[in-house]
């Protein structure tokens, strides 16, 4: 009776009027409608959610009729993109608290629901965990910091300004190293033991996925990595590691990622409600846990058998964004292992016009003193050493810009870099491999002379094919031969731009343990910012 009346009303346009007057939520009313054809739903997501797209997107489409379109981004970069007006229906990241506290997000998050859980913990080679006694008695964060300072183990971790696992681990660490493990306070940021911990860090990354891949590719680099429990369990289950990782849950506690799905577009609220309800259903949660080894957020779901059944002591997450920003500033300026880099920049003729402008703007951004969130963390930091090698037909001179360790030195060096970059002109051919060889050789010499631990990296930006100097084959022979030995362990991060040769650049990244970045689908400046997480 009611249904037929509704149909009649719909035909007369009255129902349509109701729909219009109350907006998109009316599909939430209790009327039965035939399932609409799949509709596209755009999501700006953290890269750690790629496994959802890979293995569960079809389930989601079948159950909700929503075809999820993922665009991946780092957390802080996501804030900038949304603040800059990019349109997405929803945002889905591993951890939303810091993001939600960001003033730029005020009023933009229209609803949010937690979708999965995974704590950030330390995965240590089983033999190392045993040697330290941490397989039988769990250490405190203080024990871990002491062992790291004493050189008893090394680890890899993501950059806290670029990636959630690094951020939450640093927050947890700072809280745990304080006298009492309460929510972080201003005083906790000055704790010298923070730096003790990072003395053990020997591998960094801008993303937790790449950190895990990098470790899986060459587990000899470090004794363990800090990552999501789910990623560490997946590495163990993957069967590629020579020895399994023992998961270490420090006694003071850890911080758990809860993967909130956040609505940004009010016009899609009904679809959002449907999606969130499905993602949180016991059925989906059980399947999700089995496939991704994350913990369910729905207590009616069954957690994957591989997930340890244990109490997870949760440390408080700071309640003020300003404290986290201050923690990041302290980390970058004073705590982290400083970086020494070579930016190998293509100034060949094809770079004329928009391209060299984009390149200059990217370098100037890193040399600037911005106030915006991710720009601020991407800029050249205290204690860093920046080297710039320009090339065209020939490799140009190397200019070294030490950032120093005072605000005045920082500012002067930023000005020097700006003065160098501004007048650059593009002309000539493209000598890629000779230039990269020079950069690697110089850094390896610095490394052997160096007295303090530093991260050495090469960034290569080119828009064309190599046509001068060393060929790819000659370079690879040199790298694999006895002369090239000394430069091993210094990753090259090539940026694919313009007519750059993707095969060559990818091979260069793989050979040196770096990663290729594609700027054809993203602005050059955001690629430069992303690479900063790997330096």
């Amino acid at each position, binding site marked *: 009776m*009611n249904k037929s*009346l509704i149909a009649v*009303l719909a035909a007369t346009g009255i129902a349509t009027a*109701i729909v219009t007057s*109350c*907006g998109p*939520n*009316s599909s*939430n*009313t*209790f*009327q039965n409608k035939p399932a609409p054809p799949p509709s596209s739903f755009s999501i700006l997501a953290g890269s750690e959610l790629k496994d959802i797209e890979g293995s569960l997107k079809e389930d989601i489409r079948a159950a909700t009729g929503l075809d999820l379109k993922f665009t991946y981004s780092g957390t802080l970069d996501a804030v900038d993109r949304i603040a800059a007006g990019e349109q997405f229906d929803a945002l889905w990241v591993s951890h939303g*608290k810091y993001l939600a*506290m960001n003033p730029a997000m005020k*009023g933009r998050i229209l*609803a949010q629901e*937690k979708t999965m*859980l995974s704590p950030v913990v330390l995965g240590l080679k089983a033999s190392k965990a045993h040697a330290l006694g941490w397989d039988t008695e769990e250490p405190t964060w203080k024990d871990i910091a002491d062992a790291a300072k004493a050189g008893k183990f090394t680890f890899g971790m993501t950059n806290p300004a670029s990636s959630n696992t690094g951020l939450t681990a640093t927050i947890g660490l700072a809280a745990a190293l304080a006298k*009492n*493990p*309460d*929510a*972080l306070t201003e005083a906790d940021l000055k704790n010298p033991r923070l730096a003790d911990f990072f003395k053990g860090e020997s591998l960094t990354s801008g993303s937790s996925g790449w950190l895990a891949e990098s470790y899986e590719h060459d587990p000899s680099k470090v004794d363990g990595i800090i990552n999501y429990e789910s990623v560490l369990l997946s590495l163990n289950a993957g069967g590629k590691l020579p020895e399994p990782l023992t998961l270490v849950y420090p*006694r*003071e*506690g850890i911080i*758990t990622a809860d993967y909130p799905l956040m609505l940004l577009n009010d016009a899609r*609220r009904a679809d959002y409600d449907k999606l969130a309800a499905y993602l949180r259903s016991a059925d989906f949660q059980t399947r999700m846990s089995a496939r991704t080894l994350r*913990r*369910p*957020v*729905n*207590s*009616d779901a069954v957690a994957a058998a591989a997930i340890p059944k244990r*109490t*997870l*002591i*949760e*440390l*408080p*997450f*700071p*309640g*003020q964004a300003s404290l986290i920003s201050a923690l990041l500033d302290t980390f970058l300026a004073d705590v982290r292992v400083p970086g020494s880099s070579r930016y190998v920049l293509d100034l060949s003729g094809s770079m004329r016009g928009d391209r060299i402008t984009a390149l200059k703007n990217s370098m100037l951004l890193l040399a600037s003193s911005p106030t915006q969130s991710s720009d601020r963390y991407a800029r050249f930091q205290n204690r860093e050493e920046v080297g710039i090698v320009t090339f065209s037909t020939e490799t140009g001179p190397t200019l070294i810009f030490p950032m120093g360790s005072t605000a005045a030195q920082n500012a002067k060096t930023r000005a020097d870099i700006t003065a160098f970059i501004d007048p650059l002109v593009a002309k000539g051919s493209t000598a890629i491999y000779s230039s990269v060889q020079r950069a690697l050789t110089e850094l390896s010499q610095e490394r052997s002379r160096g007295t303090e631990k530093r991260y050495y990296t090469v960034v290569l930006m080119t828009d064309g094919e190599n046509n001068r100097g060393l060929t790819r084959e000659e370079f690879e022979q040199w790298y694999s031969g006895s002369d090239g030995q000394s430069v091993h362990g210094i990753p090259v991060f090539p940026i694919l731009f313009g007519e750059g040769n993707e095969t060559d650049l990818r091979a260069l990244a793989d050979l040196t343990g770096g990663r290729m970045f594609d700027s054809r689908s993203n602005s050059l400046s955001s690629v430069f910012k992303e690479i900063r997480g790997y330096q």
Partner: protein
Amino acid sequence: MNLRKAVGPALAVVLLAGVGIAIRHSIRDKMDADNAARRIANRVTVKVLTGSEKEKFLTDPELAKVLDSEGIAITVQKAGSREIATRPDLASFDAAYPAGTHAALKIAETSGSKHVYPSFFTPMAVASWKTLIPVLEKSGVVSSKNGSYFIIDMAKLVDIMKKDTRWKDLPDNTAYPVGKAVLVTSTDVRKSNSGAMYLGLAAYIANGNNVVDTDADANKVASSMVGLFSKQGYQESSSAGPFEDYTAMGIGKSPLVMIYEQQFLEYVLSHDKPNPDMVLLYPAPTILSKHTIVALTDNGERFAQVMTSNPKVSSIAQHYGFRTQDSSELFAAVEAKGLGIPHTIVDVIDPPRYDILEKLIGRVDAGLNR
């Protein structure tokens, strides 16, 4: 002051009942006059902005049927009850359904609505874990009431918390020997009613077991309240958040959580095998939270009238853990699950007056931002 403590809530319940009865009579007359066809011809979709704890109740299929028979369909959005009043899109809703009279008054004030309908109520309670009971009993914080349910002594608890006690420092604590502070997890006092009620309760204790009802009292106790919230760090903005963490993340995240009794009962009643480690503690004293509808449009008013007058709605509400004037269905259902429940909540205080509570919240807010 003891007189106030005893009389205040009793008066409130009488008022609540009175409003309910008055509305019920007027509605029945009106409904008799209406005929079914007219009601259907006047079908409306009512857009409701609710506190998160009522989401499952409001999307219950049986409730939808009852509302449908009255010509009403609803769409539901949720928000922190104290955030509702300041929502820029508040005017696009037909009704607001916050937890708590104060949040409702705030909404009535900003929206100019005079149509406020108290519906169901629930006491503030503390969700905890059976494994902690011996430790909390040893410290004199928790005691069993006739072996039926547990009482948590708020004065003793607040005292322990204000001394910055750590869980591992509680005597004979082998069950949960962690370095975290003994702390009740709550929502954000600025955004959510349950957090604000927790503040009201703690402030009563800090004020020497007196309701805070002057500016001077508020100023006196506010600074000692800040730590209860700042040490928690990030807080959720609506009550469903901490309760979800309690069910999904367990004792490591949430040893003690300030919730509505209703949330716990809803969980127990909707599960064949509720987690046997969970336990509900009844604070003494406690505060009753009255879920209140503020009608913002005529359609919202129709919704509010059905919600507060239709006996079927009252029955459905009890399935979701809410108390009503006659909660016998709730008690029977809960007891059938083997759970003890106090039929009458005796030791009840009034929350601070609206303006005083706002003042307290403002002071805590300032402390958190310092």
